[in-house]
Each structure stands twice: as C-alpha cells, then as structure tokens.
C-alpha cells in the first residue's frame, strides 16, 4: 500500500521514456502556480490544526484537512496512518520521519526537502487510536478514489484490490455508482468480482467467476488457479464442484487468450525482424534482381548509412529526433553516391561476369570496412534513440509492442511502397524495368543504358543506406555491421525469387516470423542455423525462389 503514497520524486529519474511525460507534467504545474500558492495556505493551516489537536478532536480536524484541495494532503494522511508524521520539538515544524539505524531521517512536509537526521527525543510523534486509524484509512481511500486524474484513481483501485480490505471494497463499491472513466469502471468491476469470489453465496460466486472471462491479469489468473488447487491429502481446497468446473472453463479461456497474445507477440517480433531483413535485402533485390549484379559490398553500404546517422547526431546533439529525419536523406545520398562510384569505377567493366563482380565488390567491402575502422576507430558507436521511439506500446496486460521495432516495421513498409512507386510510376523506373528485361532492345530504343545502370545501382545502394539508418536504431554501429546482414539479405532475395520485389517482401517477413517462432524451442542461434539450412534445401527444390520470374527470358 505504500508505493502510491510515498511522496513523488520531483525529477530524479533518468529513464528516458518517462522524461517526456514528466516534462509535460512539470509545465502544467508551473502554469498552475498561483492557484497552488493559495491552496498552500489552506494546507499549512490544516497541518497546523492537526499538529495542535488533542486526540479526541483529531477526527474532525482530519476531516476538514482532507477537504483541502492539495496533492500533498494524501501523503500527510498516509504518513499519519503509518506513524511517520512528527512534529519537530525545536521549531514545531511538521516532518516525515523514516527510522533507520542512524536515527530518524527527516523530510519536510511542506516541500519535501531533506532535513537531516534526528533522534526520537527531538521529535514528537502525532499519535492515533484505533477508531482514528479506521477513519483515516477510509478518508485516504476516499481521497484516492476521488482524485481527478483517472490514472491515479486506477492505481488506487488496483491497490485496494490487492489489499482486499472490507472498508476499501465498500468505498470501491460506492465509487462504482459515479465513476465515468471506462478503464477505472472496468477495474472496479473486476475488483468487486474478485471480492465476490470469497462471498458465501454460490450464485454470486459463479457469476463472479464467469465475469472474469478473458482477463489476462496475472493476479486474476492466480485467484482462479487457487480455486482448483488440492491440499496435501489430494482433496480439493474448494469443496464445490460447480465452482471448480466454472473456474476451470474460465481459466482455460484465459489460457487460450494468453497463448493467442503470446503468438501475436511472436508474430510482431517476427515481423519486426522481417522488416530489418526486408530493409537490408530490398536494395539488394534491385541490384541483384534487376541488374544481375552481385554486390558483396551491400552490407557496407548499410554500414555507411548507419555511420551517417551517427555523424548527423554528432552535428545535431540533443536533437535525436530531428537528426534521424536529417539522417535518412543524408544516408540515402551518401550510400547512393558511393554505390554509383562503385558501379562506374568497377562493376561496369564486369557486366556479364557475375562471379568476378562478386569478388571485386567483396574487395570494396573490405576496403570500406577498414576505411570506417580507420576514421571512426574499430569500437562500436552508439546512436541515441529519440524519446518517441523508445518505450513500448502496452496493448493489454499480456501484450506490449516495443516502439522502435514498431516504427521500423512501418518504415520498412513505407520504403517498400515508395520503391514500388518509383519503379512503377517514374521515368527512371520505366527505364530500369526496360533495361532489366532486354538490355539490347532498350539500348536500341535510345535508353542510355549506362546512365540507367548507374542510377539503378545508386537507387539500390541508397536504400541500403536508409536501411542502415533503421539498423542504427536497433544495434550498435560498428565496422562489422554490414557483414552481419549480408548473408541474411542474400538469402532473403534468393528465397523470394530474384527480380521480384514482392517476393523479397514475403520472403523477409516469412523468414523473420519463422525465426522467431523457432527461437523459444531451439534458442536464437540454432533458429538462425535452421532457417539457413531450410533455405539451402529450399533452393535445391526451387532454384528460382518462391516467386520465380516466368517466361522465355527467364529460361536462359
């Protein structure tokens, strides 16, 4: 019961996701400053009246103090209940005191500042009797249930559910009549249903059990499981068979939903892994699939994209969000330029000799790796993630999606659609497709094939750079970043069917999801090995992938 009532720390947390929220709250607080000052007097007066009150008068004084509209009221009452509220003998100031081995650590009631340590002889405890304690408990509960912020109310209801105190339940029951927030209403309903589980009336209990259907909260699940337990002699703890039966059915339904949720979560993780695979493979699908060029330096082009993100962040410190948006076009441009340079400088001399292209571009990849190692050091660089990308999206008690993976999934789809549109709608896209289908004919029709080759390669490389930006949000940026993905991305392209962007998309997601479904059974590394072996075997069966190019041209 203590956690929600301890004085809220002002801004000590370094947790990035909370920072934004706190910032907002802080701004709101500063806007409300004048009102607070007014309320502060009422708070001080109330406090004083409690301090000076005699025991038999304390009840009514607590009542009137509780009516003061100030966030500090509840903590004071809680401290009073817990026996942590003191008056300092030296100056009569009201303080919170926490006993420890060195004495009692003091904090100011007014503004929560630390006041050092004192011995108990320097302090006077505000004492209570049992009647007062129960009044106080009820008052605190009522206060918490009536707080304006629904979030706080929800917390209070959940805390009361855990304590399962009769008085609390009565309060919750009365709150049910006037509660408007749907989430709090639901929490209240469940709290009361759980309470009904212990009631002597059988229909009420059955009803309560049924109303718990589909709840994923582990506390609820534990209560239901408890109904089915046996004691040491093998007899059921719960004597009523009907209750047990209903509980069993409800529990089974809950388990199904849980399994579904965990499957959904696996699918999501799989899709997000797939998104990374698709992002890293899709540029390759263009250079390999459309141009027939094996670019072993593709991974290093992604690495360049990731390093671009790092550099942009160094140039725009304190603005991870903005720098990310700057990094996307910058990475595209840099990787595309490097790609064009590779194409013009090396690959164009090797068209029609794919194995030589493979070797030469591998040389380029070694060169780029060492270049980065020489410039940025061989150590990994970490790229910070903007606030809105960190944290997770809680869908229900059993399912939460990490935001950065979610955004990368979106980003991957966006890049895919954009690329599809470029190939479908633009002049460049038309020329690329023409050259891919029949190079000689395209040249005869006046398409500058050399320029188209360079542009196509630039496009594929640029997308590798963009993929690098996305990767920088997931892993550390280092010289070996590219190598880790090159085998995977080739597998995706080959599995999907060379020359088919949709194939790449389907293959990437399929492999990602398959990987994540295997992981719980086999472990991450073995899952990866299994997927690789599967693809190797698959290629034997269908050498042209899932979606092969058809027709006469593909025969040769």
């Amino acid at each position, binding site marked *: 019961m203590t956690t929600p009532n301890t004085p809220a720390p002002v801004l000590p947390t370094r947790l990035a996701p909370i920072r934004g929220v706190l910032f907002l709250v802080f701004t709101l607080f500063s806007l409300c400053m004048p009102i607070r000052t007014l309320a502060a007097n009422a708070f001080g007066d109330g406090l004083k009246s409690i301090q000076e009150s005699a025991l038999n008068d304390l009840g009514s004084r607590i009542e009137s103090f509780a009516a003061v509209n100030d966030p500090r009221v509840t903590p004071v009452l809680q401290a009073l209940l817990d026996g942590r509220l003191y008056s300092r003998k030296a100056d009569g100031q009201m303080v919170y005191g926490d006993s420890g081995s060195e004495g009692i650590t003091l904090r100011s009631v007014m503004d929560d500042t630390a006041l050092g340590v004192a011995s108990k002889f320097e302090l006077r405890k505000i004492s209570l009797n049992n009647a007062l304690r129960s009044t106080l408990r009820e008052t605190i509960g009522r206060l918490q249930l009536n707080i304006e912020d629904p979030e706080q109310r929800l917390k209070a209801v959940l805390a009361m559910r855990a304590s399962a105190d009769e008085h609390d339940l009565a309060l919750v029951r009365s709150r049910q009549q006037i509660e408007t927030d749907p989430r709090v209403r639901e929490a209240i309903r469940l709290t009361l249903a759980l309470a009904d589980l212990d009631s002597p009336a059988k229909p009420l209990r059955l009803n309560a059990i049924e109303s718990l259907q589909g709840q994923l909260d582990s506390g609820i699940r534990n209560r239901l499981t408890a109904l089915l337990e046996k004691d040491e002699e093998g007899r059921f703890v719960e004597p009523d068979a009907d209750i047990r039966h209903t509980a069993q059915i409800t529990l089974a339904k809950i388990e199904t939903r849980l399994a579904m949720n965990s499957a959904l979560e696996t699918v999501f993780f799989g899709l997000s892994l797939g998104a990374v695979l698709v992002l890293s493979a899709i540029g390759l699908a263009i250079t390999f699939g459309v141009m027939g060029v094996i670019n072993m330096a593709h991974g290093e082009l992604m690495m360049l994209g990731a390093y671009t993100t790092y550099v942009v962040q160094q140039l725009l410190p304190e603005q991870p969000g903005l720098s990310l948006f700057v990094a996307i076009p910058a990475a595209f441009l840099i990787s595309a330029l490097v790609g064009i340079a590779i194409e013009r400088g090396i690959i164009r001399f090797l068209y029609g000799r794919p194995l030589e292209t493979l070797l030469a571009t591998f040389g380029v990849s070694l060169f780029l790796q*060492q270049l980065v190692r020489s410039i940025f050091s061989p150590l990994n660089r970490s790229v910070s993630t903007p606030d809105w990308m960190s944290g997770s999206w809680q869908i229900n008690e059993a399912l939460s999606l990490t935001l950065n993976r979610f955004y990368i999934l979106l980003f991957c789809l966006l890049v895919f659609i954009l690329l599809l549109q470029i190939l479908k709608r633009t002049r460049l896209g038309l020329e690329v497709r023409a050259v891919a289908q029949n190079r000689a004919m395209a040249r005869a029709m006046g398409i500058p094939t050399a320029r188209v080759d360079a542009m196509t390669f630039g496009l594929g490389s640029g997308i590798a750079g963009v993929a690098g930006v996305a990767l920088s949000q997931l892993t550390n940026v280092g010289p070996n970043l590219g190598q880790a993905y090159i085998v995977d991305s080739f597998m995706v392209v080959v599995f999907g069917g060379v020359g088919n962007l949709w194939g790449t998309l389907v293959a990437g997601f399929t492999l990602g999801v398959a990987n994540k479904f295997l992981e719980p059974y086999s472990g991450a590394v073995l899952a990866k090995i299994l997927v690789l072996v599967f693809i190797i075997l698959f290629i034997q069966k269908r050498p042209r992938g899932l979606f092969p190019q058809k027709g006469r041209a593909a025969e040769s």
Partner: protein
Amino acid sequence: MSFPALPLDKPVLYRVMALLAALLLIPLGNLLLPESSALHFSTYTVSLLGKYLTFALLALALDLVWGYCGILSLGHGVFFALGGYAMGMYLMRQIGERGVYGNPLLPDFMVFLNWQTLPWYWLGFDHFAYALLMIVLAPAVLAFVFGWLAFRSRVTGVYLSIITQALAYALMLAFFRNEMGFGGNNGLTDFKDILGYNLQQDATRDVLFAVTALSVALAYLAARAVVRSKLGRVVLAVRDAESRVRFLGYRVEMFKLWIFVFSAILAGIAGALYVPQVGIINPSEFSPLNSLEIVIWVAVGGRGTLYGALLGAILVNYGKTVFTAVLPEVWLFALGTIFIVVTLFLPDGLVGFWQRHRREHA
C-alpha cells in the same frame, strides 16, 4: 604405366621431386645446422612456411572446382575446418590427464561445461587411424550431400556461390555453440603431442613440415593427373558449356560431384596438417571471410593452373604476414585492393599474365 592409366609425364614428376627435395632442406636446416648458420631456419619460420604450404594445398583444392569446373565455392574453408577439427579432436584426446582439470575421460572444456560423458561423436578419436579416416570422411560426406543436392537440382553460378557461403555461415554459428561439443568459442587448443611426439619440439615440427610438403607434392601430382585425364577435359567442358556436355550424354552432376568431393578431401587434409602446426582450431575457420580469402589466393595466382593456385596462396599469405606485422591496419586495404585489381586487370592471375606476356614476346 599400367594402372591406373592416368597421364603423368616424367619431366613434371622430376621437377616436383626436385622442388620437394629443396623444401625438405628447410627442416633439415632447422634440425642439423647451428643457429649461426645462414641456412638455419628458425622453428618459427618452419612452422610459418608449413602453414603456407597447407594454405597452398587448400588453394589447390579450390582451384580444382573453381578454375577447372567453374564452381565458385565460397565455403571451401568449411572442408578445411572439418579436417582441422577431426585432427584437433585426436590431439585433444592425446592430452589425456594433462589438462587443467586433470580429468582422464573428458577434455577440459567438457569438464568446464559439467558434462559427465564423452559425446558419441568423440568416440574413436583416441586412435590416430580413426582420426585419419574422419579427416577424409567428414569433408567428403558433407561435400557429397551438399553437392548431390545442389548439382542434381542444377543450382549454378552465383546461386551456388551464395548458398555455399550460407553453409559456411551456418556451420560457423553452429560451431560457436558450446552445446555442439567442439569447444565453442575457444575451439580446440592446448595440444600436447601427436603420435607420442611432443608438439613443442623442433624435430616434431620439422617432421610435420616434411609431411606437409610431401602431401602438397602428392596432391599436386594427383590433381594434375586428374585434370589431364579425360575426366579433366569433361570437367573443363562443363565449365565452358554445361548443357552441351549434358547433351553429349554425360551426367554433368556426377562429374561435378566427383570433383567437388575430391576437392573437399584435399581441403580436409590441408586442415588436418594445419592444426598441429598452428596449435589451435576454432570456429572462426568457418567464417565466410576465410573462405573468400582462399578465393583470392587462387585468383591472384591464376585459376585454371594448378601451380598458379599454389603460388597465389604462398604469395598472398606472405604478404599478409608482412603487412599484419608492420602495418596491421593497412592489410584489409591491401586485401580489398588485391580483390579489385586482380578481377579488373588480372583475370587469369599472375600466371596467366606471365603466360600471355611470354606468348606475346615469343
């Protein structure tokens, strides 16, 4: 020359024998001459040259499939590593009770993992003959299964290259796992002796060098006999016009499979000779980068000529030793540049360049 009726011309045989004799002077120099002598080779040099020779054998193996049959394997390091692991397992068993934990039954890393019994696939490695069998069998079986699947379904060109690379990658990941029972990350090391001879002794190292040189010479003669046989001509024909060969009535996949398995066995032997000389085998030998380096040795020397492959391996590795000692960060730049320059300007390697030069000036 009655059986086997493989072509083997005498001049080449004499030349190889002369070269072998010259190579054998190196360990003799190490063993017999005083350190002050100009012809004395340090044990370090002997081991280093021995390592180069195993790489040369590996390059020879790759050249058979790439240079002669047109199969660019980006996973030949796998066969090398398998041969190496087979030898490593024998050497591990020879440690016996002399390990850190002094366990007579299990190698140190298994004791460390709290294993109670030796896994079944370690049984038999106490015997040198069994290890020799495995050195040949393990790469051969893998090459056979992989090749049978790949060649039968006519996976060719870059697709084949990519899946051989995937194979290497998958095996590397697998051997990194402790559960595999091959020492995980650290691999197999801390060897004590081979056939009862201490691996740290100069004489042992000299003999290992001599065995390696002899193996390379024999492998060269065998490979030469193969490429000059009719099978060699079929394989060459497969490289240049695969479907024509098929329509002539040859089962192309069987020929590819034969040369692939033969090559894998040579690579496995190279790995087995490598391990006792460097004293360690670990999963990084499976890494795709290692396999690609083999390709560059062959490319530099000149694919399609056997001595080109040998030469390339020795030259590139000598360069690597020099660079990594003097300017370690330049080595990758140099290697990358070699890849680019060789493919762009020396498609037939140094040997091809030299041959063309000689032809033009003849």
